[in-house]
């Protein structure tokens, strides 16, 4: 056998070997899809790479935000590189050069090479030969993969090709993993930090939207919340934490919990924001802006406190608009020791309060006041129904734009108290007070006397209590209340979808006599689909 023949056979064997190795690589990278955690994935890949290329070391460095430095993300045989948080400027040294030139770099013998690694670790460990290739995704270098040998070794073209092949797959896996992580952040944000659904409150219609920024990595710190404060009031929050990504989302979650806790045991919107500011000062993390408003469900009185946040918009039923700018203070975390005051307004029937974050009104190259004017214009011409209004506002204000910042919007509307009133009351005892206050307001709005108001308050409350007690029991349901006025005669129907049971105890039967005492006429109509109570009383106007 000639040396040539031997050489040829060796090469053929090596080639066959390489095919098997390649299959290994494929198997590894394919199974790598199963890893959600990038570090687990890279550890596995480096194991396989050192195995396949028979090298002593392997490492992945990724380009950091800003693109100027490479940081070691995973290493085998050079673990300290990661532990010490080693960073290489792009363009300098061995890895820096690979990233800068986007070409493979081979160092046959480190002792005699012109290019030297920046990291002294290679010498400490006794690495002699190195091969590095760029990690490229869609034409962008995202990092470097390199392997090293403790004994001098020639890396051949075949080795380079093989490593580049692995690198391409690694790069794709990294990118996929990053996107997955980004997606998870966004999903977590949506799922856990925003209300899954808004509470149902008699006399109010609410709607909210959250629009993430177009760029995945810009998933940010906007949030909204609705807090049921107890028997007769409700709190609304909208806020925006500076910055983006996981850190902003985390701080947002902390603020959200904090304001919920303060809201439940602190009287007054201004006091709640003052406490939240104190909390932020202690956290010393980042700035945030927030608006907190409370609404009294029997008077529809609103108290608003604001920390550096855009002005809430009050849209009156007649179409006029007003930005609520009277009370305010600096953003949370901007200046310590601040006290926040509050602005009081009273909502009239059919009014809408619009809370939003700056993403809705800030446009590059235009003034904030222009954004506000556009919002007021769109809000007053959009459909009245809150869901449709939210939809129209966000659609029209973001038309043709790439959403650079995330957007949150929360609208709260009081029902109209015209001749016809229709509301849905959650079948819970805690909602009775709200239901009777609402009917009282409706009777008042339709020129009923104090006696009329009191009469309907008790009759409607009793009828609702019957539905809650007899029709639904412990399971949640809805009671429909419909009030109409025809020729001075007020008629209120209370409809549920259950069958009334026999009273649980004798005392509970007092509801109907009570209704009869205060109404001109009471009828109870049980049907297959539910029970309807009809209450009629002529309003004693101008008595």
């Amino acid at each position, binding site marked *: 056998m000639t040396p040539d023949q031997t050489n040829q056979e060796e090469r053929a064997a090596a080639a066959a070997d390489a095919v098997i190795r390649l299959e290994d690589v494929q198997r590894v990278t394919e199974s790598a899809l199963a890893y959600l955690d990038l570090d687990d994935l890279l550890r596995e890949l480096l194991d396989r790479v050192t195995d396949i290329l028979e090298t002593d070391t392997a490492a992945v460095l990724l380009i950091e935000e800003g693109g100027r430095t490479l940081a070691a993300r995973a290493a085998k045989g050079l673990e300290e590189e990661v532990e010490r948080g080693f960073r290489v400027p792009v363009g300098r040294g061995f890895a820096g050069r690979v990233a800068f030139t986007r070409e493979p770099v081979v160092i046959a013998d480190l002792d005699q090479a012109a290019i030297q690694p920046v990291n002294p670790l290679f010498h400490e460990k006794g690495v002699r030969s190195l091969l590095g290739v760029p990690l490229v995704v869609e034409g962008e270098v995202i990092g470097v993969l390199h392997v090293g040998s403790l004994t001098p070794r020639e890396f051949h073209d075949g080795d380079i090709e093989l490593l580049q092949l692995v690198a391409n797959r690694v790069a794709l896996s990294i990118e996929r993993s990053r996107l997955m992580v980004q997606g998870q952040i966004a999903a977590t944000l949506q799922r856990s930090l925003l209300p899954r659904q808004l509470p149902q409150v008699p006399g109010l219609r609410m709607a909210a939207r959250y629009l993430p920024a177009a760029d995945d990595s810009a998933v940010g710190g906007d949030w909204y919340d609705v807090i049921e*404060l*107890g*028997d*007769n*009031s409700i709190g609304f929050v909208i806020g925006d934490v500076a910055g983006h990504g996981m850190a902003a989302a985390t701080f947002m979650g902390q603020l959200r919990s904090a304001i919920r806790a303060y809201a*439940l*045991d*602190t*009287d007054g919107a201004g006091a709640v924001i003052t406490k939240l500011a104190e909390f932020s000062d202690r956290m010393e993390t980042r700035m945030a802006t927030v608006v907190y408003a409370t609404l009294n469900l029997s008077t529809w009185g609103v108290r608003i406190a604001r920390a550096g946040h855009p002005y809430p918009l009050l849209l009156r039923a007649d179409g006029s608009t007003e930005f609520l700018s009277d009370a305010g203070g600096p953003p949370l975390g901007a200046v310590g020791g601040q006290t926040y005051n509050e602005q009081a307004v009273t909502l009239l029937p059919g009014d809408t309060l619009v809370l939003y974050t700056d993403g809705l009104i800030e446009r590059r190259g235009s003034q904030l006041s222009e954004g506000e004017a556009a919002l007021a214009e769109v809000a007053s011409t959009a459909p009245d129904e809150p869901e449709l209004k939210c939809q129209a506002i966000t659609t029209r204000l973001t038309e043709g734009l790439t959403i650079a910042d995330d957007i949150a919007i929360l609208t709260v509307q009081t029902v109209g108290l015209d001749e016809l009133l229709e509301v849905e009351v959650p079948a*819970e*005892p*805690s909602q*009775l*007070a709200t239901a*009777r206050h609402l009917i009282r307001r409706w009777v008042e709005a339709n020129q009923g006397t104090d006696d009329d108001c*009191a009469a309907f*308050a*008790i009759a409607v*409350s*009793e009828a609702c*209590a019957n539905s*809650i*007690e007899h029709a639904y029991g412990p399971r949640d349901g809805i009671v429909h209340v419909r009030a109409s006025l025809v020729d001075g005669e007020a008629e209120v129907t209370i409809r549920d979808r259950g069958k009334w049971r026999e009273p649980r105890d004798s*005392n*509970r039967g*007092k*509801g109907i*006599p*009570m209704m009869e*005492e*205060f109404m001109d006429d009471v009828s109870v109509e049980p049907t297959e689909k539910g029970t309807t109570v009809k209450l009629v009383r002529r309003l004693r106007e101008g008595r």
Partner: protein
Amino acid sequence: MRPQLALLSLETQGDIELARVAGEVDASNVDDLSQRLLEAVPNRARALVLDLSETSYIDSSGISLIFDAAARLRNRRQQLRLVVTPRSFVGEVLAAVSMERSVAIDAALDDALRAVGDSDGSGGSDGLD
């Protein structure tokens, strides 16, 4: 503070237990009120005076509470007196169910306290004085 639909305040005046309910009473808070009210009346108390002059709303569940409390106290030979402002909403509701036939009602707190005292004077336990 988390707003409460009704606030119950209790006070002991000698052997009279005085309970004031301010706010609204309905199915959402009646069980809680009922329990706290009955726990507040010790065996040695001669009477419970329930002051409803600051109560702005009461429904049939609140009426039940009063009838129920009256029955329990009667069994224990204890008196119940209500203080209700005449022509108020609560007054009308109590009139609608003829409450005055089962439970003594006074227009002012002083009247109620005096009435308990008087009944003591004419009752059988004045041997202690």
